[in-house]
């Protein structure tokens, strides 16, 4: 037993305790991650630790794909400041009418659309959050329901293609990226559907959590139609345009984000809301929010690097190999480990540590590796929601008004974490949800 404690390879596990401690006494997330990386990195890398950490910053700073983050944030900030977002949701509420929780359902749908256009979670979560939160609050939606919905909806971007996670996952698992992307489509939509069902049921039982429109506020169609045409269609068209330019292959995601930002400026012009002051203020919130998101990401990258550099992957592997389980118990254990690791590690660590160990074993046990991979990818998506290392919550914290507290966020994600597990259960029961589309698309030849 003492061996366990003095074997310095296990020393790496102390990194978790260090960062959790720092987070809970209220050290800003980015600096908690960075300073723990420095401390533990010094043990592993000695004098080279500074060179190592600054190159982690460099890797984030020259990442073209992440350039979409400030652009999407700018788009969201501009639409919010100009009041276009508020009008959009007013109109959406007319559309969902008396359906309780209807506006939250609409939010999940917007998240799903956005998820289909970008694989970067911070970006889509922040845009939708900026647009939706003020309106949902003013309509009296429950705060924790708002938080959970935005966090979970925002995290859909990692599983619904295109997805950066899957593109990294494919080679690590030795599986075709194309097949994995196709396999993730229906599980992603299934999760989105589960969120919607949950919202409708919860608000049906507890109307105070998510009201529908009172009967007397519902407009007759004669008045509703112009409102829908004027307030709903243009911004929705913009969001579709962003998604569409990516899906049609006109633009890469970073470029589409810029088109979206540009389109938002034009839209403000059309609505006569375009002022220098408004533009400037949108720029100010953009730099604050981007710096906040990207610094957390940078800290996470440093932390991952130090953890893996200290041999974190080897430690985990030896722990797993010590057990000897039946096939289904193995799958259950693997998913459970990924789930647990997601609480304290960021997605890239979870992926790099476990995928090379899990996939060969799962394949040898006779399971379909693509099917297992979709389960694993849902766990990675879940890791965005599970505190303390919960990027979805961090990003949300950066954009919510002060009346929403951290407690609302923690409470809010819990039901959605349960929904993730239900989604996994459904996929285990009905593997075709994942396996049908890749077979349909890629089974045949070119015509």
């Amino acid at each position, binding site marked *: 037993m003492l061996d366990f404690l003095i074997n310095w390879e296990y020393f790496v596990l102390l990194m978790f305790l260090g960062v959790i401690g720092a987070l809970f006494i209220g050290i800003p997330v980015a600096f908690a991650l960075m300073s723990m990386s420095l401390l533990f990195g010094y043990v592993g*890398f*000695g*004098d*080279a630790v500074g*060179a*190592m950490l600054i*190159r982690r910053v*460099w*890797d984030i700073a020259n*990442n*073209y*794909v992440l350039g979409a983050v400030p652009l999407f944030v700018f788009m969201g900030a501009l639409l919010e400041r100009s009041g276009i977002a508020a009008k959009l949701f007013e109109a959406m509420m007319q559309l969902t009418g008396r359906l309780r929780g209807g506006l939250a359902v609409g939010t999940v749908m917007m998240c799903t659309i956005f998820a289909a256009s970008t694989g970067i979670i911070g970006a889509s979560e922040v845009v939708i959050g900026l647009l939706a939160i003020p309106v949902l609050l003013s309509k009296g939606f429950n705060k924790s329901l708002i938080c959970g919905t935005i966090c979970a909806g925002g995290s859909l971007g990692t599983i619904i*293609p*295109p997805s*950066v996670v899957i*593109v*990294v996952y*494919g*080679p*690590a*698992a*030795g*599986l*075709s*990226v*194309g*097949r994995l*992307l196709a396999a993730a489509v229906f599980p992603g939509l299934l999760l989105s559907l589960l969120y919607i069902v949950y919202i409708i049921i919860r608000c049906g039982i507890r109307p105070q959590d998510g009201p529908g429109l009172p009967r007397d506020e519902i407009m007759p169609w004669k008045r509703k139609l112009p409102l829908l045409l004027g307030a709903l269609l243009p911004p929705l068209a913009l969001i579709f345009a962003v998604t569409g330019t*990516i*899906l*049609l*292959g*006109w*633009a*890469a*995601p970073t470029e589409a984000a810029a088109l979206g930002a540009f389109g938002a400026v034009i839209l403000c012009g059309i609505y006569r809301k375009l002022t220098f002051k408004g533009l400037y203020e949108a720029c100010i919130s953009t730099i604050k929010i981007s710096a906040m998101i990207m610094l957390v990401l940078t800290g996470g990258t440093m932390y*991952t*690097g*130090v953890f*893996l*550099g200290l*041999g974190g992957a*080897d430690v985990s592997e030896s722990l797993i190999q010590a057990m000897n389980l039946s096939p289904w118990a193995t799958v259950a254990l693997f998913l459970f480990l990924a789930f647990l690791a997601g609480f304290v590690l960021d997605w*890239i660590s979870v992926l*790099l540590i476990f*995928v*090379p160990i899990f996939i060969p074993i799962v394949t040898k046990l006779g399971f379909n590796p693509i099917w297992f991979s979709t389960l694993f990818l849902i766990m990675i998506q879940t890791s965005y929601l599970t505190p303390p290392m919960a990027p979805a919550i961090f990003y949300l914290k950066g954009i919510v008004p002060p009346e929403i507290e951290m407690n609302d966020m923690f409470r809010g994600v819990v039901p959605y974490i349960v929904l993730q597990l239900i989604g996994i259960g459904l996929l285990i029961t009905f593997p075709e949800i994942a396996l049908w589309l890749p077979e349909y698309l*890629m089974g*045949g*030849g*070119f*015509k």
Partner: protein
Amino acid sequence: AAEKTFKWRMTTSWPTGVPLYTEMAELFAKKVDMLSNGRLKMQVLPGGTIAPALEVTDSVAKGICEIGHLWPGYDIGRDATTAILGGWAGGMESVPMLHWLYTGDGVKLWREFRMEKFGVVGMPCGIRPTEVFLHSHKAIRTLEDFKGAKIRTVGAWADILPKLGASVVTLPGNEVFPALERKVIDGTEWATPGENVISGFHEVAKYIVIPGAHQPSAPFEIVINKSKWEALPKDLQTIIEQAAMLVTFESWVRIGKLDMGAMEVFKKKGNEIIQLDSATQTACLKLGKEWAQEKAGKNEWFKKVLASMNAFEDGWAAVAPTRYFEYKK
């Protein structure tokens, strides 16, 4: 007393699981472990975890890790000589390339260049045979077909390709697959057939254009931190040198075997394989040579390495026909 053992970290440019990771970097670590009886162990790490994937040499020189595995051409931003060490449109196919490396001046020049310009111990470790020229939505057969094609590539080939009338699109590695799938680009080069099957390009683009006139062969390398190298006993240094050479040859045949499997996959999938006509192949070669001549003007090392390669290739030209059978064409 027990002999001193060493534990090194090896950073690479690769994600886990791809052949460059398993058939070169990991294979090298295993060989060294075996040959040294466990006295020198290496922990292989994917690109971007402890050091930037494209800045392996710099990270090794700074001491972030003891050793790194990379494609030399990734250092083109610091010295263009690395681009021809890594093989380019004007360079040798893998058989003469291997001969130049191990019987010509290759390894010697390589080591001197890396030490003088980067302060690291460098040597070839792994080689790729000819790549796939393009996975493409457009049927590119002749020089005419390049006009207006949007092609993703990097490095020397990105400099050369516009001269054929194509336009070059720059994309990060992770974005290449989705961009090809959605036809943001008409085509992309990537790696050899066997490696490309894993990335799945053949599943989204019908045409596969061969041979890789932009990359007739591609040597890879290990770079080692100078002081860590000097701290090794002589026999471990020799083991590293021998293991690196062994991996060069073994990776070459292993990737060749993967290519065999890949051609089967393409056939089953119904991809159309297009052989570039000989005029196009020659044009690529000529542009590659011109590109190198131009770069050599400004760089002494470039000049020296290019001259050595060119002289060797000229000598090899006489050997090539002795191994050529018309009936096996």
